[in-house]
């Protein structure tokens, strides 16, 4: 079990999380995440979880379905109200296919 996060691992995680972090933040998080993960895993490693199911919903509720009929939702105007980048009644987003 790996417990110490290297700087390059932290950079990789920041990319996955789409978080623009400063160099100083990367250093701090490398230390703090290692500390928290180490604390957590030292405790959990001692617990035998063989044949134990993971918990999803705590009171055991199962999937709930509704009839497949349309209902009124937000108007286009309401849905766009909080956006800072709108074009002709649509959300304007960065081109995604041009990214690496």
């Amino acid at each position, binding site marked *: 079990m790996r417990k110490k996060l290297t700087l390059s691992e932290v950079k990789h995680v920041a990319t996955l999380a789409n*978080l623009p972090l400063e160099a100083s933040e990367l250093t701090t998080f490398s230390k703090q995440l290692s500390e928290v993960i180490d604390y957590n895993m030292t405790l959990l490693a001692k617990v035998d979880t063989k044949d134990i199911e*993971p918990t999803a919903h705590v009171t055991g509720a199962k999937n709930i379905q*509704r009839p497949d009929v349309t209902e009124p939702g937000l108007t286009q105007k309401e849905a766009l109200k*909080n956006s800072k980048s709108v074009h002709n009644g649509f959300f304007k987003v960065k081109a995604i296919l041009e990214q690496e």
Partner: protein
Amino acid sequence: MGLEKLTIKEAHQGVIGKKFSAKELSSEIFAQISKVEPKINAYLLTTEETALKQAEKVDKLISENQKLSPLAGSPVAIKDNIVTKNTRTTAASKVLKDFIPPYSATVYEKLENCNTVLIGKANLDEFAMGGSTENSAFKTTKNPWDISRVPGGTSGGPAAAVASDMCVWALGTDTGGSIRQPASFCGVVGMKPTYGRVSRYGLIAMASSLDQAGPITKTVEDSALVLNAISGFDKYDATSVEKEVPDYTKYLTGEVKDVKIGVPKEFFGGGIETNVKDAVMRAVKRLEGLGGKIVEISLPRSKEAIAVYYLIMPSEVSSNMARYDGVRFGGTREKFGPEVKRRIMLGTYALSSGYYEAYYLKAAKVRTLISQEFQKAFRQVDVIVGPTSPVLPFKLGERVEDPLQMYLADILTVPVNLAGLPGMSIPCGLVGGLPVGLQIIANHWEEGKILNLAHAYEINFPFTEKPRL
């Protein structure tokens, strides 16, 4: 007139008995806010205009002799991670600093239907991540009992507002203790209902398998009144559960003879401050004196609860925070504060390829064991009691630089969320002028047993002290 000191029940009786109007009541609350808020910083927004309209409506309904909810006219503070249509909701984050929700949370809609009066949106740790309200991007809320100390968190604003009479009650959210711990620190009553009891629709999601909304009030009776109003299945929240909602006030009998009260030895062990332990043990003795049967129990798995919580919660956080891309609403991701970034990083790491099974899945399995342990305990006892927080309200700034220390403050509240149980904190005394909370936990859907015991305690040992402001 001192109307700001009233409970929901007293306020309601006064308003329907025409001793004072809903408008007068809310004006006195705003007068108290202008006096006290500069010291406490509980609110991110006050909503005088909305309050005036809502209060006038209540007064009109009363003049027409309409039948009203017990919450009608009651001045309420809403934690600012609960969306309120057309009223700015920020989650105390720069990312949402100018967000105007196009819809209301189901819990808030229910309150509007009960004709409550919205006083304002109360401060919290950014996106409800923290334990002291120091992570708010906008202001630091002070503990009304000692303004050099934290009010707890993440519902620090709501709890401080209730404690300092800047509202009659408040609505908070609790993911790992965020209603109960600030209630304990501020000397008020805080209830986290069973997971699925109250709709999460319109709660700005933090950790979806743990979040739950609930009341922060001055009395246990008020808590029951609010629970009556906000509970129930909601078609907009598929994790809410379709189950009959009892009238919670029927449990307020004052009778606790032969109630089996479990006292877990782990809740009184290392890491719990001695003076907190002593105050809570005295409360336990008092419950015994009222006729309760004390049963010593053990919850050995609770020592792993923090470890499970700080894997499951950040994992869910990292997923929920992905929606803040600056496109549909809100600002861009560099605006997140340090604690939010830390949890996104922790969660993304725990869910990343190669680590998911070792971290997230392992934690989800231990979570099952924690739940099972509680289920076993509840075959033996009706309720479980212990301290809400291992420590008294700490000094501002004391823990901000040490995340692990801050996380360990959640040690007694987190197991309840992991198991989805209802839990309440009630004030059980002062130590050196600072409040101590007694936590009462019951099995799923048994909020009634908590209210019963808490109410009996409250009427026999009323907590009448008030912070000097």
